[in-house]
């Protein structure tokens, strides 16, 4: 049975409200803003942060790093995933590296990167390496999901590769690519900010969070966290819009379009 969107929104609203109430009750019970600031303290810290003249610079510095890390992992990860999907040699060659990257702890990469690179490059590098295997295996899986009958059919009828790529592979792989993009983007935000806390570049949200921690401005720390959650939601919504289009594209009869 299909639930109406109205009922779903109502329940989401109740969920959100209970989160807020739990936060508020917790902060009142503890009565110590060093341990858990109240929602109102956090909101006023948030307005202080946003109205600061340096705010845009900090935000853009981090967003730019997220974009760079995401773009690198997405492009190179897609290329590596495609190579693995089409060739067993490439797959065998790359799988040890992918497996290693999937399990390597974030902190190991960060510690090494801090010694290797300037502080502003560290978050980009770490985000790239953490997201790369996710994108690569997702794209690889997408290519594996292509209908083999259709593949055979198109080779029997000698459909040119350019047409096959556009009409057969891309529509099948697209949902995987979009889900990989969404995952790696969400991850990039978290990783970039965490790495910024460790590498301390001159500008960036991670640096501001570290200062807030150092000077015990806990409401500010919470405010930055809220802001990051909002930013993550915003970029995810953007991808969701793209995903909706991709799914539309995928539907319909593939073979008819191949002809």
């Amino acid at each position, binding site marked *: 049975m299909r639930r109406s969107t109205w009922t779903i929104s109502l329940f989401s609203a109740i969920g959100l409200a209970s989160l807020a109430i739990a936060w508020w009750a917790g902060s009142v019970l503890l009565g110590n803003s060093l341990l858990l600031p109240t929602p109102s303290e956090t909101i006023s810290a948030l307005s202080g942060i946003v109205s600061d003249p340096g705010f845009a610079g900090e935000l853009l510095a981090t967003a730019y790093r997220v974009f760079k890390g995401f773009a690198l992992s997405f492009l190179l990860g897609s290329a590596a995933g495609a190579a693995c999907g089409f060739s067993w040699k490439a797959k065998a060659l790359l799988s040890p590296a992918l497996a290693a990257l999937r399990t390597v702890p974030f902190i190991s990469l960060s510690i090494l990167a801090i010694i290797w690179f300037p502080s502003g490059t560290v978050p980009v590098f770490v985000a790239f390496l953490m997201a790369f295997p996710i994108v690569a295996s997702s794209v690889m899986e997408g290519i594996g999901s292509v209908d083999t009958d259709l593949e055979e059919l198109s080779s029997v009828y000698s459909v040119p590769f350019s047409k096959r790529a556009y009409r057969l592979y891309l529509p099948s792989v697209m949902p995987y690519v979009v889900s990989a993009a969404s995952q790696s983007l969400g991850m990039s935000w978290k990783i970039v900010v965490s790495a910024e806390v460790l590498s*301390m570049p*001159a500008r960036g949200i991670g640096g501001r969070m570290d*200062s807030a921690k150092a*000077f015990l401005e806990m409401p500010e720390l919470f405010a930055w966290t809220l802001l990051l959650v909002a930013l993550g939601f915003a970029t995810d919504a953007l991808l969701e819009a793209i995903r909706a289009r991709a799914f539309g594209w995928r539907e319909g009869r593939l073979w008819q379009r191949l002809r």
Partner: protein
Amino acid sequence: MIGKVFNMRKGWAILALLFIVVLQATGMEGCKAAPKPKVVALNGVTGLGLALLFESGDYEIEVGKSADVAVARLTSDGAEIAALPVSTAALLRNKGVPIRIAAVTNYGSLYVVSRAEGGLLQSASSYLGVPGKGTMPDVTLAILLAEYKSASSGVQHHSSPVELANLLLAGKAQAALLPEPWVSQVLAKDAGLRITSDIQAEWRAKFGFDYPLSCVVVTEKFADERPDALKKLLSDIEKSVDWVKSNPGKAAAMAAEKLSMDPAATEKAVPRCNFAYLDGPAAKAASSQFYSKVLQYAPTMIGGKLPDEAFYLDN
């Protein structure tokens, strides 16, 4: 249905068990008579001054790597006593943590270590690594640069002295403002590095007094309810500071064991650590003089105001 009931029972049993464990962990300790005072000591020079306390067995000591640990313990009754940088003590007080400063344990021990020529100001305008925000190196540097009206464009923060020392040794940082014993440690590892600026001398030349670096704070509850324990604590600290000053070798061996500090470097560092024991009015004079400079030049680092009178322990 039966399965569900069983699971529910299991759930309740686990909850009850958890509850008992929590009760045990939190409630039982209060039942003991006169428990050992719990101390949080930061590693580095701040903890080094308390070396003798580790051996006495009269204290339960936890070693923290950064001030966060001390904040967590002092706010949650996890410790009554903490050895902290002087700036952190005031910041905690101003943020509502009920602590009092009991004693100062050493004056400054901060130096600029570099491969290149040029003093503090030159490094600060090209490249000068600082370990952490709101730390004593960060605070004193901000004040000195503001007083000199000098450029701070080369000042680069790093997350810890260990990391900064590694970058310096790897040649990735040209100059670093480090506290002892890391100064001695990097000097011993690389003959190309030299001390190019003595922050204590810079400070004295500018302001005409010596700034204190480490202190011991106690919670108000401890000071009010256990005056005898407090008296013993102060005399133990005084003994410890004197002992460390006159026995660098033994103190270094203890630091290696308890604070995971490099013994050879620590032994060399002791004379440069400027250990001194101050309490009562002397501790108040030394720290309040310093706080007024912080308030003037870098107020956020102590929470935007001077600590109130009750912060200073009267004895």
